[in-house]
């Protein structure tokens, strides 16, 4: 059984697929599959125009001895034009070759690699990512760093001979990762370079009434909003291009910062925003007369050279087009070819909500100057910056969530995949199913744990309407996510009290669906399908309501297939939707649903979305998990597993919300000397209003 650290793998024997990203002088090639004699190393090397190259070997399943030859040709050729080469995520197979073959990495540096670990207690294998900086000490000593098993917590052992496994890494000269590459890894690949490098770094540059603030790193609860806000006045330009991962706490801190500075500044312009940032930190309610977005990145894929890159969109320049939820047209920066925008529906839907910026030309000049000035600065004179002082060009890179696979077959490069409705128009049978679809069972959903994220895929049932099928697939993916979160929660109270509420109901419903899959025309199948559809839709909605910022709002990818209808004329659609959930997000969700609150003697957990399988009438609320004796809660007759849906006139969103509303209601009731009312659902019965005498709270 494989742990959450397992890197991406494609089925063994798959010919090599190479994804190519670029951002100015930095390019990244992600290899997937088998490197064998079909890999044309020299041809690939000729397409690389970068000065710094990152080779991601995290999904390499096999390197044959003939593949080694091609690889060496590739390295030999690419080294001539690219002075800096870094290898990341090297799988054990790649590590074996690196150790065995002279010059496998040429002049490049191995930055990170996966080491096979084994837990003898659980009898399972794991792959653990080691970094040459973070784990330098252990590697140099050729002693595997300790790692606990994610299941049982016992220490795992390296399932390799450390002396041979660490041979290359141990003798590799110590090197410092180039600042630009660090920023690229953090912000574009959401890569854990090191704990220090991930932390948000803020640089300020002031000129007259203008302040330029550059943010680089991950946006989390450590975001120093208050410190940053100190003294800010005039026009503030916030360059968000270096922001990597954004967790819910970070998004909240940033928005708090933004709202906090608005009264004291004249304007706030956000530039270089990635789609995830726009959706989480620059929502419509955050943007107004004073706060606007001047530029943001959208992913574009070149139809000639297949390079995927994020290109900056100037909001003012393209305002009329953006109003229509349409991306502006762009040319490929590598080869000048035509590109297609591969942004998801969520971000496109966000575009019309961007206000028209009102920017003085002097501010635009200031921005150019600030960015150019950053690029001219010597590294030694920098304020703390993980970017090493180098400013990224406006063409920032595509977030990991949106990718286009390049299939290499016999040396010919093809582009495949459809991410928006327009691109998908040509998809149909001509397209190859993407590798992230590992199961195509209709009306299903599943999640896969990867190295730094969880991928949840929803598969629709066959539907006549593509939109309806897509909606169903989205719900299925979300429901799968909810279930996965539920399985990860280790809180014994959740395990004993919450999971039993829905687990059997869910299991039975899905078993019924599976049993009837063979006869999709039968009434039994219809019945089972409708039950599953209803439940999944409800769970999905509930998750999005109560999960907060941790719930992905944007699908990472989707794909559809069209079939002849099972009965009657016309066609039916089968749609697959994928969501990527970063590790931090998944952890935030686990925490959200396992942290309890307490009020008036009742201990509460936020109503877990999956209970929607059993309770069609519950999408939000708080579940009682404990009642203390001789308290108002006990006197009220509250019991474990009661669900609190409302206090007075208000609906309850979650446990915290119930606690605060309850306290407020008690205070209000005391003031006006009246009784309180609660809306309570007990067991499988309907929700009912319950009156609580004020005396209980005195």
């Amino acid at each position, binding site marked *: 059984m494989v742990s959450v650290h397992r890197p991406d793998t494609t089925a063994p*024997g798959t010919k090599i697929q190479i994804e190519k990203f670029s951002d100015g002088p930095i390019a990244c090639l992600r290899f997937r599959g088998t490197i064998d004699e079909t890999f044309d190393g020299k041809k690939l090397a000729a397409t690389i125009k970068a000065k710094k190259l990152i080779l991601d070997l995290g999904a390499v399943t096999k390197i044959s001895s*003939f593949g080694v*030859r091609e690889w060496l040709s590739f390295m030999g050729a690419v080294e001539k034009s690219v002075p800096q080469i870094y290898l990341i995520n090297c799988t054990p197979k790649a590590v074996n070759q690196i150790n065995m073959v*002279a010059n496998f990495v040429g002049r490049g540096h191995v930055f990170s690699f996966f080491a096979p670990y*084994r837990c003898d207690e659980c009898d399972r294998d794991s792959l653990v990512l080691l970094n040459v900086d973070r784990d330098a000490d252990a590697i140099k000593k050729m002693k595997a760093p300790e790692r606990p098993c994610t299941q049982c917590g016992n220490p795992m052992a390296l*399932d390799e001979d450390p002396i*041979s496994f660490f041979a290359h890494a141990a003798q590799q000269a110590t090197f410092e990762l180039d600042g630009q590459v660090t920023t690229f890894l953090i912000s574009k690949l959401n890569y854990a370079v090191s704990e220090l490098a991930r932390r948000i770094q803020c640089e300020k540059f002031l000129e007259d009434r203008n302040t330029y603030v550059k943010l680089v790193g991950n946006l989390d609860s450590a975001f120093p909003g208050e410190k940053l806000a100190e003294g800010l006045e005039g026009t503030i330009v916030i360059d968000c291009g270096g922001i990597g991962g954004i967790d819910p706490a970070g998004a909240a801190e940033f928005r708090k910062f933004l709202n906090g500075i608005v009264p004291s500044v004249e304007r706030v312009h956000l530039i270089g925003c990635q789609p995830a940032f726009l959706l989480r930190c620059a929502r419509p309610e955050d943007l107004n007369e004073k706060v606007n977005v001047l530029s943001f990145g959208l992913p574009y894929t070149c139809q000639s050279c297949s390079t995927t890159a994020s290109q900056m969109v100037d909001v003012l320049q393209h305002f009329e087009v953006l109003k229509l939820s349409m991306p502006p047209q762009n040319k490929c920066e590598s080869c000048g070819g035509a590109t297609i925008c591969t942004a998801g529906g969520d971000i496109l839907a966000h575009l019309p909500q961007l206000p028209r910026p009102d920017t003085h030309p002097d501010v635009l000049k200031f921005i150019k100057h600030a960015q150019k000035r950053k690029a001219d600065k010597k590294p030694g004179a920098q304020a703390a910056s993980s970017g090493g002082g180098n400013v990224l060009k406006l063409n920032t890179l595509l977030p990991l969530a949106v990718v286009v696979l390049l299939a290499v077959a016999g040396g010919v490069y093809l582009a495949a995949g459809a991410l928006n409705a327009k691109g998908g128009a040509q998809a149909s049978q001509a397209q190859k199913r993407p590798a992230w679809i590992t199961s195509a069972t209709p009306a299903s959903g599943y999640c896969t744990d990867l190295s730094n994220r969880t991928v949840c895929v929803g598969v629709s049932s066959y539907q006549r309407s593509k939109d309806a099928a897509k909606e169903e697939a989205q719900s299925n993916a979300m429901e799968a996510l909810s279930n996965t979160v539920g399985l990860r929660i280790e809180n014994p109270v959740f395990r004993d009290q919450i999971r039993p509420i829905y687990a059997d109901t869910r299991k039975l419903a899905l078993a019924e669906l599976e049993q009837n899959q063979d006869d999709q025309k039968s009434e039994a199948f219809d019945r089972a399908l409708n039950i599953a559809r209803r439940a999944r839709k409800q769970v999905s909605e509930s998750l999005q309501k109560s999960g907060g910022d941790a719930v992905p709002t944007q699908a990472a990818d989707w794909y559809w297939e069209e079939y002849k209808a099972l009965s009657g004329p016309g066609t039916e659609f089968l749609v697959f939707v994928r969501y990527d959930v970063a590790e931090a997000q998944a952890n935030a969700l686990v925490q959200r649903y396992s942290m309890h609150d307490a009020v008036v003697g009742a201990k509460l957990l936020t109503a877990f979305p999956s209970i929607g399988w059993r309770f069609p009438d519950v999408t939000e609320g708080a579940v009682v998990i404990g009642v203390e004796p001789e308290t108002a809660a006990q006197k009220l007759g509250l019991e474990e597993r009661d669900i609190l849906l409302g206090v007075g006139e208000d609906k309850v969103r979650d446990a915290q919300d119930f606690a605060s509303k309850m306290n407020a209601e008690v205070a209000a009731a005391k003031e006006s000397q009246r009784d309180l009312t609660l809306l309570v659902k007990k067991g499988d019965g309907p929700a009912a209003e319950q009156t609580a005498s004020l005396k209980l709270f005195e």
Partner: protein
Amino acid sequence: MRAVVLHRDPAILRRIVRVWRSFGLEVSGSVDPAEAVKNIEGAALFGADEFDRDLVLQQLAEHKKLKACLWTAEPIQRCLKMFKQEARLLSILGRASFESPPRDLELGLVALRIQNQEKRVPFSGHLRHGASSFEVPVRDTAGIDAAVARTEAFVAGIEVTKWVSEVVAELAHELLMNAVYDAPADSKGRARFAHDRKAKVQLPPEESAILRVGSDGALIAVQVTDPFGRLKREHVVDGLIRGLQSGELDDRGGGAGLGMTVCHNSTVAMIYDLIPAKQTEVTGIFDLELNRREFRTTARSLHFFERE
């Protein structure tokens, strides 16, 4: 046919003597080098620990019909140069530790080979009785892929960890690529396809390579036979020396020249059986009893038999 065994540990000595006697050899064993040398005259085979290599080489020089095998718990690299130089050194048998004897199976193979030099050891002879196996001819590029997939599926079917099935599949792939690309020769003995790995090759049926894969639950054996008999001892040893010591490529052919090293690293024993100009049979043995750590560090074996 007589064999002499020299080993300082009496328990291990007894074991080797027992196995060789069971395989029909007349064996005299000794813990003392001087006594062993006394028994050499007229012997067909001299077996000893690599520690006594100098003595063994000396005896080979003095007795022209003598053949020898050495066993070692060390990495094989130390013996390769000697193995290349002395063609009558048939085998280097890896053993798990200084306290362990060489594998019975391999001792048996040496005994069989020395006695029946014309006869081929059947594939089943590499595994215990009751092993399951399959055999498939391979004569083109697509056939290689199919055969490798079948190998991986076969191995996965006996409930092993994923890395085992991957390693064994890799071994099968290497052996088949050599048999289909490197082995075929024209009428003048020149390699036909070795310089272009990307070429789609199709051999006539009579030139097909044969892949055999089997397991008895403790071992997995992968064997590829080709009808060309072009693989020379020095190819094997040079490839290993280059790969194991320096990782340098030999790109005189179309491959990376690392195939031997890959095969070596994918097995606990490699057995090369050559009938010059007629047949090459290469068998790799994988030990399922070893975990990955043990597998990486265990001493490996190399056998090179040449028949008329």
